[in-house]
Structure formats: structure tokens, C-alpha cells
């Protein structure tokens, strides 16, 4: 079983953000970067499959500046075997541009499965996985919360609003990984040591023309400071009155 997992390096969203002078990007001061949440789950899913089947290889792929090599090494320390770094000065915002470059790399890779996160935690587009599937003409299931592979076929569950579907599909296939399937394991000490020796193959990303560009980035308008109406159940009538007369939602 040969599995590729596409992983993105993203800033930690728990920290305070401010906007850079260009008005189009984040001020980098004090930012910490890590693997995007869902991509960590995707690495975990791939590792478990290879462990179960006792054969195979997990290859991690990341597009971006040299710093993405740290993210690839993080995945190595979890257990991924090999890394591919598609070098680009910056990560484009346009999902199609990323998808074209990833698809060009993955096309001839002979992968049984290509995994993505459901969406990245920075740009939050949630488009790259199905786009790559489309470009490679592979079957695709997006947003899966459960996966089994046996005899060259996969079974997955995906949550749609209010219902869930169980689906089967042939390999090779593209899957995007949702919440609830697996939490990313923590790197072991042994893993961290081994990660240093694993190989990263670096090549230029084949970026086409971007037709979606960021013109402006801003912090959301702060919600007008709210008020604490009172304490305990005695404050309830006042709350209901405000919901009726001020907010007019009741």
C-alpha cells in the first residue's frame, strides 16, 4: 500500500494575529507554525493503514517555501517514510494553483491512496483535495469520518448535514479527512531521531497562473462589546425583554 498525504504548514490559530503592512498578509512576528489539523489526522490514518496491512509506505508532500521541510519532518517523526517538497516562494491562495502542482507531482507516483485534509486551517478553502481528484480523474470521497481498506477496495463514511453515507470505492482513490476519524499521534523520541535521517526530495512547484488572489486581509470587525445583564436566574426576564425589544429575535 503506497499512500501519499498532502500536508500544509499553517500558523497556529490560538495566537494573536495582526495584519502586515502590505494589508494582504499576516504580520509574521510571533507566529508559530505547525501541520494543519486535518492533515495531521490524514497522516495518522495513513500510518494506521500501513501498520494494519504490515506493508507499504507513507509519503508526505508539501508545497511552499523551505520552511515546509520542518512540517515534513514533523510527519517523519510520526512515522512517515519519505517527503517531497514542491518549492514555491509563497503558498498561493488559489486552490487550483496548488492542486495543479500537486496533481503534476502525484500523477505518476503509483499511489494507492492520496489523502488530504478536509480543509486547511489557514486559508480554509477546502477545495484542493477534490480538485486534485478531478485533475487526475480519480474517484474521490470528501470529508470522511471512517475508513476501511480490504482487497483493493475502500469503504468510507462521510457526514452530510443531518445524514451520513456509507460508500465503497475502488483504489486508487483520493480521500479528504474530516474530524472524528483519528487524532494525530505525538511524535516519539525514537521517531524524532529517525526523522533526521529521512530523505526529502525537493523540486520546483509547477505553478500555473493564479486567477484567485488576496487583495486585502483584515481583522474581523470586533463585535460591539456585549454586556453582562446580571447574575443568576433573576436576570432571565431582562434577557428575554432585550431579546424581544432590542435584538428583536424573539
Amino acid at each position, binding site marked *: 500500500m503506497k499512500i501519499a498525504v498532502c500536508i500544509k504548514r499553517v500558523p497556529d490559530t490560538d495566537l494573536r494575529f495582526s495584519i502586515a503592512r502590505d494589508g494582504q498578509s499576516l504580520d509574521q512576528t510571533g507566529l508559530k507554525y505547525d501541520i494543519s489539523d486535518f492533515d495531521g489526522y490524514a497522516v495518522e490514518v495513513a500510518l494506521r493503514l500501513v501498520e494494519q496491512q504490515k506493508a507499504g509506505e507513507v509519503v508526505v508532500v508539501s508545497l511552499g517555501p523551505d520552511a515546509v521541510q520542518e512540517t515534513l519532518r514533523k510527519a517523519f517523526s510520526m512515522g512517515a517514510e519519505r517527503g517531497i517538497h514542491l518549492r514555491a516562494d509563497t503558498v498561493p491562495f488559489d486552490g487550483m494553483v496548488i492542486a495543479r502542482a500537486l496533481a503534476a507531482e502525484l500523477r505518476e507516483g503509483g499511489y494507492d491512496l492520496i489523502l488530504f485534509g478536509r480543509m486547511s486551517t489557514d486559508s480554509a478553502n477546502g477545495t484542493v483535495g*477534490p480538485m486534485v481528484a478531478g485533475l487526475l480523474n480519480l474517484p474521490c470521497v470528501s470529508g470522511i469520518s471512517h475508513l476501511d481498506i480490504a482487497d483493493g477496495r475502500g*469503504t468510507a463514511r462521510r457526514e452530510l448535514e443531518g445524514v451520513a*453515507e456509507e460508500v465503497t470505492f475502488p483504489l486508487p482513490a483520493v480521500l479528504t479527512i474530516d474530524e472524528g476519524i483519528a487524532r494525530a499521534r505525538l511524535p516519539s523520541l525514537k521517531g524524532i531521531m529517525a526523522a533526521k535521517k529521512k530523505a526529502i526530495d525537493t523540486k520546483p512547484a509547477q505553478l500555473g497562473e493564479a486567477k484567485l488572489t488576496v487583495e486585502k*486581509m483584515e481583522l474581523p470587525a470586533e463585535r460591539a462589546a456585549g454586556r453582562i445583564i446580571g447574575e443568576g436566574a433573576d436576570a*432571565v426576564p431582562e434577557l428575554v425583554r432585550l431579546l424581544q425589544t432590542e435584538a428583536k429575535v424573539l
Partner: protein
Amino acid sequence: MANTFAYAESRAGSLRTVAFEAVSAARRAADASGGGEVHAMLLGAPGIAARAEELGRYGADVVIVVEHAGLERYNPEVAAATAAERIRSGGYRAAFFAASAEGRDLAPRVAAALDTSLASDVTSFELDGDAVLAQHSVFAGKAQVRVRLTGSPALVSLRPGAMAPVEAARSARVETAAPAIDPASARVVVTAMLDRGSAKLDLGEAPVIVSGGRGLRAAENFKLIEDLADAFGNAAVGATRAVTDDGWRPATDQIGQTGRVVSPTLYVAVGISGAVQHLAGMRSAGTIVAINKDKDAPIFKIADYGIVGDLFEIVPRLTEEVRKAKGG
């Protein structure tokens, strides 16, 4: 004058609210570019054509109906091929989808098929000459970007609930079309459907959401949350990841960065601390109410109205008062 395209989502023979939102957005785009036509595509099992008229109410001039016994449920490969074929041949300037579970799956496939770019999960948009300028929230809602989309056609998926559909009644012409590929040839096959309480109001469509957090202390205490939701009458129940992780509520109830992103008119957060990952899913709600015993809980920073105290005393009282206010 250019025509615009909208994908009208249906489920079990009925149109979803997001279908009207997509048609309404397409209407606005068509009007802004000199009054072209809106062509809405509706896929479904035989009989779905009966719904075409409802799309006219929100501004569709033409409804392209694709009926097939194999299209009772969303079939990604067929929907993508059929929508892409029509968008290609129709010469549309822009095409609108919902950023719902279905639309998030479909729109990027259509973008790949047409080799064009997609602005995803858009909360508002305007036209600027041939370009679309769209707002989209990034970094778990901690920032937002305005993107310029210059692809032709421009593909846009709309955050559910962000732009209310506006009536623009006309009587839509119905055209019929065949699926671009045989539904039986799809490689991904649905083998079972699991009901996740779809009889209840969906989080994406509910005007009011009452959400509970770890402060509820146990699964059975969610009865308090359900009772309050019942009192509102038009409310769905949500939860934090702390709650869904512990299995007190199903994972599908989770609101936040890694759960559902919602924008109801009213959001009531009960026993929820207000972690950034949770706020990412609900900060665009119209009015936010928080009930928490800790006056320093971060949820109070974004709540319009807060009550400090024990939820086990406050919520039953609130349920009672809401019932009264609703006249029941």
C-alpha cells in the same frame, strides 16, 4: 449582458434553503452585469421538476432539470460532469454553488473539470468589471480576506446562511437535460444511509441554535438544552468539541473550526468557555447570548448578552420565560 448559473441543491425531493441562496446570488450577479438570465440546474429523481417553480420565485429564468432514477441522492461524479458540461456550453460568466457538505464536494470538482478557479465559502461578494470580489474568512475566523477572482467563468461557493435569499419572482422556463455520464457508471457507490436525526432542523438552516458545552457535565443534562430549543420552536441543538469528544452528543452537532460553521439569527451558548476553535464556527451569528458561571470566560467577550451564574438554575427559567414569550 451575461447569464449566470446556479446549482440548486435538493434532498429527498425537496429544495434546500441553500438552493434559494445560490439562485438569489446568481440573480444579483446577473442584475449587476446588465440583467442577464439566471439558469439554475436541478438534479434529482423523476418528479423533481415539480420544484422548478420555487426557484423562479428567487429569480431563476430557466431551470435545467436533470431527472434520473439514479439521482435520488447526490451523485458527485454525475453532478460534477453534468454541471461542468452545462457551464462550459452555456458561456456563463459566473456560477454559484452552496458551501454546504454537498457543494463543498461538488464545486472544486467542477473547477477542476473547467480548469478555472473557485472562491470558496464566500460570505459576501460584489462584481468589479469582469472580476468577482469576494469576502472569505481565514485563520479560524480570526481574519478575513477579500479575494479577486478573474477566472472565466468565475466559480463561487456561498457560505450557507450568510446571504439571505431575496424574492425576485418570475415564471421560470423549464428545460430538461440528461446526465452527462450514466449514473450507474459512478465509481463511488453509496451502500447505506445513516440517519443522523435529519427529521430535526439542520444546524445550517435553523434560525436559532442552542449549544451546550462541558459545563453541562453529563449527556443526560442535554435535556435542558433540548427543552430550551423546543421552547424557541425554531431551534437546533449544537455542541462543543469537548462534548462531542466525550460522546454526549454526536460528532455532527459540533460547531467550530473543525465542525460546522453556522450563522443563525440567535446563538445561545450554555456552559461554553469560548475557545477560538469554537468561536470560529459561530462568531457571525446575529445575536449571541452566553450563560456561564465564570464571569471571565472568553465567550462573554463576543456575546451581546451574558448572564453569569449556574446554568442549572438559569436555563430552566429561560425555557419557561421563552415559552411564555412565544405565547405557549
